[in-house]
């Protein structure tokens, strides 16, 4: 998929290359497909930790396609990829830590007068 750069060698002066858009519509299909799967799970599965985990995995898959293909990060240099990914990984850590903390605070508050 890295070959979606324009092929300029055969172009005459002022001529415009043919659009190369098949890969864009393929990514679009993937994104719509994943969203459809999410809706199937919303209505066919009872809320549970498993269902939430499925949603989070599907969301990360969508993010992978948007950032990797649409924002072109997959085709940038390794240094740039890591520059973006490492801080984001730390953010995920923060998220997990504070959600755990939230559950603990909730437990304390709800059992305070029992």
């Amino acid at each position, binding site marked *: 998929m890295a070959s979606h750069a324009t092929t300029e060698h055969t172009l005459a002066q002022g001529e415009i290359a043919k659009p190369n858009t098949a890969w864009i519509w393929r990514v679009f299909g993937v994104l719509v497909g994943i969203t459809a799967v999410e809706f199937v799970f919303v209505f066919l599965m009872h809320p549970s930790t498993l269902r939430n985990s499925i*949603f989070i995995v599907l969301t990360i898959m969508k993010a992978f396609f948007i950032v990797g293909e649409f924002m072109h990060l997959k085709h940038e240099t390794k240094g740039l990829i890591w520059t973006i990914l490492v801080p984001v990984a730390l953010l995920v850590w923060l998220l997990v830590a504070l959600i755990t903390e939230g559950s603990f605070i909730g437990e304390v508050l709800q059992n305070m007068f029992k």
Partner: protein
Amino acid sequence: MAQSTTLPHPAASATHDAPRTGNWDGGNEPFKASYGKLMMWFFLLSDAFTFAAFLTTYGMIRHKHEVFTGEAKDFVFSTRWWPIPDHVFNAFPGMGEANVPLGFVALMTMILILSSVTMVLAVEAGHRMDKADVQKWLLWTILFGTTFLGSQAWEWTHFINGHHEGTVMADGTVFHGANLAMNQYGPVLFADLFFFITGFHGTHVFSGVCLLVWCFIATTNGTFEKRGHYEMIEKIGLYWHFVDLVWVFVFTFFYLV
């Protein structure tokens, strides 16, 4: 001039032994990216911090509240527990009180994904220096972007005005809809987080639409053609995809989970 307080011009001194070439004037491009594109990436990373802070706050506050444990059909709005999203967001424009759980938000998601696609198509057309195609796809992106903003305005109006049945509050009165101090759907913070998170995202979409309109005018005037490249479309495109990406996360954590 006996004493000069300014340093010699860096480009001038560089020509003595080895001339500097290249976009960053050091004969090299860090990460093989242009200055503008790299800085856009760093801005988006900092913006991701902001949105992550919002979503982390949402996750923490939500986990602090009680969970409704009964069957979904027996669910009623109460300040005791966090609301089930498909009971809150179940209205569709022009369908009155009909129960369409998450129907409208599905439509909004589709509109934003489509706008992302037309944005890539504009960037692709820019690579080919195809001015007419860039204009066409920018206009489609602006159309989808404004449609999304309109949908969000409707969603907010419905959220603020509330469901027909309302909820009986602690003092015995029935309350419809939501504001920052109270809401019919559940804990006060639920509505606050809705306003802040979707509002902040909507502001980003609005800024994006403004930038796209500016891009369209510049393209039409031939600014980018004279410049010899459409890199500005790429940079605005990065921003636009980021806004779509944020929606993907807001959608999951606010409407699905």
